[in-house]
């Protein structure tokens, strides 16, 4: 027993070991790099060999061979993929077919071969069609393992329909251990891999899918239904079997009883007739001599009045037959009955004596009554009794045993005549009533027994328990097998139905919703395979439509407001050119082209008294209304400070300090500001983190006016700005710009850049202020082409035309 368990355990653990091995092999880079199909073939062959080994190491038990062959292909299919399952199933099955040549069981050859191939196919199909090609859960392993083995058992029946009895004996032995071993082995395979994958991906808290939750619950329900129906069937079949045993035993007993009584009746009547014949023939023998001759116990002559006139017992003479219940039964002989025979029973005259009586009428009136005791008639009819028992079979192995009142066997199946009934192992019947089934060992086999008494005999009907329960077991097993298959099919069907009706539709809805949330509000959900989803689709579409309407409305409103903001912003900038038509000593031009979004660029210029021209260009970080508002604040602040006559660097220093106060939005402004003394041509300027302007001497080209910039305005409190100075000469021209110019993009997302700006400026360096700005703008537009501009494009150009003499 120990080795049997060990071998079974070994065969069970082999596929588990292989699972672990191949799962870990994925860590090996060379193995992992192999194509999917190659790996599948390798795994298929390995598990096929495992299945073959299971065949070779099968455990012979009672003429059948227990093995764990089906687990390997099943595990390969469930854990690794359908091709490996199919390959392993084929290898295991075909090996089993040929294994007969070197000693495997012939009886289940076809069934086992088919069973193993089927297990591969089922493992592969379950993974492919039910699990969406993902690893199974352990309970799947268990359930599929059970189903496959039950199929295997049914195959044993199917391949031996003409000898179900033997097939069933094989199945009875194999079913439980093989179903258990194969399903547990498959389950362990999956558990092992799950444990490994958990270690590999420790944070695997994924929310369960509908299909998975559903599968779990469906499985629980199906299992519960299976258990309940199985228990019910088992109970019902047991009761049915009990009642069948009762009926079979009773009918047989009654038959035998009837047979013995008939034989005994016939025999006694025959004797009585012979005695009557002798008496009527005028026999001279005395009644006692006659009784001796025919070996009967008692002869009574009764007259037409029913009074005993002569008897072998003188004491009976003069007895009126009408006086006793037993004797009264003979009176119909006086009224014309031709014969009366009684069963063996206590006599009316002396209840301690049991006798069997028969009577026939005499031609001269009255009748003769013959009494007979057990010993006598048992001797006379023993042949019939023996035959009655020997010829009778109850079921296949059951039999009748007859013994006499002392418990000596008169007849039985195996020739124990003359021995005491107890040698058969028969328990006492003292507390048992007639025709009640009880259990007792007979011939060393636990059996159902029932007894009755007749004519001084005990008749015992015997049917072995195993035989009595055989048909019940067949019924229960077949029922359980069929239910397994039915429930498995049901499970698969309902699962597919749900998947088709719910999960796939949800997927479709989700796909559409993903597009909608991705920004495409024009996608409609259109799942119309059933009413619920059609209504859901309509609801979603209506919601999206409503949403779209609101969004459009809101967008239109925002657009209007932004447009308004842009107008205000533009209105704040000087936009009449030339601004000082009376001044010929300098010219100035500026332009701002706002991007689609409101930006934070601005430029400004104003006269400080008659002799100084202030001009600046700035860029507020960020976009939209906040940037526009910050720009207005900055512009106003700077202008206010400039008009108090501060030097350019002090304007920035103070503006910065003011802007830093309450700048919760952490916005900042880059700015370049210059104050040109029109009398001397001296330019004083400060740079708060802004792009360097380009400058052109009277006859040269443009170059960047590099100066070390200070930090942007509103960046940090306490920054002191530097003042730079530059002496301008008549003809010198400055070009200020924001990064919207140099960071314009073309459709290939290339930036226009400083170099292109210089090139553009220097193509025609002599252009006056307005023409210069327009040329640069045209070049930027040509570069950008179709690409959207995200930033304002702002430029300002100043030329010193002349200085006073």
């Amino acid at each position, binding site marked *: 027993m120990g080795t049997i368990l060990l071998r079974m355990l070994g065969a069970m653990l082999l596929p588990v070991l292989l699972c672990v091995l191949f799962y870990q092999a994925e860590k090996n880079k060379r193995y992992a790099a192999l194509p999917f199909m190659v790996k599948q073939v390798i795994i298929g062959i390995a598990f096929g060999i495992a299945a073959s080994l299971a065949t070779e190491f099968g455990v012979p038990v009672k003429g059948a061979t227990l093995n764990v062959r089906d687990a390997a292909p099943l595990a390969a299919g469930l854990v690794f993929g359908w091709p490996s399952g199919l390959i392993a199933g084929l290898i295991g099955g075909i090996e089993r077919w040929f294994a007969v040549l070197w000693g495997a069981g012939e009886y289940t050859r076809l069934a086992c071969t088919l069973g193993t191939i089927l297990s591969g196919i089922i493992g592969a199909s379950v993974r492919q069609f039910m699990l969406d090609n993902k690893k199974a859960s352990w309970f799947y392993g268990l359930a599929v393992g059970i189903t496959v083995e039950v199929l295997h058992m049914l195959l044993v029946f199917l391949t031996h329909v003409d000898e179900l009895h033997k097939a069933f004996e094989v199945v009875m032995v194999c079913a439980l251990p093989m179903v258990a071993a194969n399903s547990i082995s498959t389950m362990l395979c999956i558990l092992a891999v799950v444990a490994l994958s958990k270690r590999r991906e420790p944070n695997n808290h994924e929310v369960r899918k509908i299909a998975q939750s559903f599968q779990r619950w469906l499985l629980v329900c199906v299992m519960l239904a299976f258990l309940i129906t199985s228990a019910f069937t088992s109970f019902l079949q047991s009761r049915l079997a009990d009642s069948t045993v009762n009926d079979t035993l009773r009918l047989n007993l009654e038959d035998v009883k009837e047979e013995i009584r008939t034989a005994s009746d016939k025999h006694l009547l025959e004797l009585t007739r012979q005695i009557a014949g002798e008496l009527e023939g005028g026999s001279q023998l005395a009644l006692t001599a006659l009784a001796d001759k025919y070996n009967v116990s008692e002869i009574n002559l009764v007259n037409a009045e029913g009074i005993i006139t002569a008897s072998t017992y003188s004491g009976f003479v003069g007895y009126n037959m009408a006086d006793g219940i037993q004797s009264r039964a003979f009176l119909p002989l006086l009224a014309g009955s031709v014969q009366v025979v009684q069963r063996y029973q206590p006599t009316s005259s002396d209840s301690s004596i049991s006798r069997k009586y028969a009577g026939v009428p005499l031609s001269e009136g009255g009748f003769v009554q013959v009494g007979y005791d057990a010993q006598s008639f048992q001797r006379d009819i023993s042949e019939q009794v023996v035959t009655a028992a020997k010829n009778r079979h109850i079921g296949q192995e059951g039999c009748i045993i007859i013994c006499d009142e002392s418990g000596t066997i008169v007849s039985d199946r195996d020739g124990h005549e003359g021995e005491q009934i107890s040698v058969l192992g028969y328990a006492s019947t003292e507390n048992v009533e007639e025709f009640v089934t009880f259990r007792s060992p007979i011939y060393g086999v636990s059996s159902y027994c029932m007894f009755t008494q007749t004519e001084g005999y005990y008749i015992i009907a015997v049917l072995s328990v195993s035989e009595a329960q055989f048909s019940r077991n067949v019924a229960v097993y077949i029922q359980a097998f069929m239910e397994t298959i039915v429930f498995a099919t049901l499970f698969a069907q309902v699962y597919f139905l749900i998947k088709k009706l719910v999960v796939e539709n949800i997927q479709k809805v989700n796909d559409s919703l993903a597009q909608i949330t991705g920004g495409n509000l024009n996608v409609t959900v259109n799942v119309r395979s059933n009413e619920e989803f059609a209504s859901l689709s309509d609801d979603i579409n209506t919601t999206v439509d409503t949403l779209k309407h609101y969004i459009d409305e809101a967008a239109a409103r925002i657009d209007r407001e932004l447009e308004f903001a842009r107008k205000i912003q533009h209105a704040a900038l000087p936009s009449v050119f030339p601004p000082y038509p009376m001044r010929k000593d300098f010219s100035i031009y500026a332009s701002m082209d706002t991007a689609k979004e409101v930006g934070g660029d601005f430029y400004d210029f104003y006269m400080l008294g008659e002799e100084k021209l202030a001009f600046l260009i700035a*860029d507020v*970080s*960020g*976009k939209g209304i906040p940037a526009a508002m910050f720009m207005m604040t900055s512009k106003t602040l700077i202008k206010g400070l400039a008009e108090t006559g501060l030097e350019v660097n002090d304007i920035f220093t103070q503006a910065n300090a003011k802007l830093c106060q309450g700048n919760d939005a*952490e*916005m*900042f402004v*880059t700015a370049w500001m210059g104050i040109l003394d029109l009398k001397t041509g001296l330019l004083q300027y400060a*740079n*708060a*983190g*802004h*792009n*360097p302007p380009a400058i052109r001497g009277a006859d040269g080209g443009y170059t960047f006016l590099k100066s070390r*910039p*200070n*930090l*942007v305005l509103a*960046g*940090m409190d306490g*920054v002191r700005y530097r003042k730079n100075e530059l002496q301008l000469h008549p003809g010198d021209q400055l070009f200020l710009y924001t*990064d919207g110019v140099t960071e314009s993009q073309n459709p290939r997302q290339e930036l226009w850049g400083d170099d292109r700006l210089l090139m553009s400026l220097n193509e025609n360096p002599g252009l006056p202020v307005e023409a210069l700005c327009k040329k640069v703008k045209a070049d930027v537009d040509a570069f950008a082409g179709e690409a959207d501009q*995200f930033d304002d494009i702002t430029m300002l150009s100043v030329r010193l035309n002349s200085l006073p003499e």
Partner: protein
Amino acid sequence: MNIEKKQSGTTLTVTVSGRLDTMTAPALEQELKNDFPGLSQLVLDFQNLEYISSAGLRVLLGAHKAMKGNLVIKHPNEALMEVFDITGFADILTIE
């Protein structure tokens, strides 16, 4: 943009790669905001940062203020350095 964080003691090193512009700057801002408390030094490694816009500069300014100056910018490329120079950020930031 891609953000990688590595903390040793109270020094947090954040490696930012890709583009730090209007679209991506809020993500970095959000990331950093949660970390400021309890930090003694914040190191921003810009080795693989290709571009920084004014929105990105704004995040740096915010970080500079929140860290009270204990902000170190590491490995900015030339273009980035130019931006820092032009905007005057080079004056206030510790750049290594």
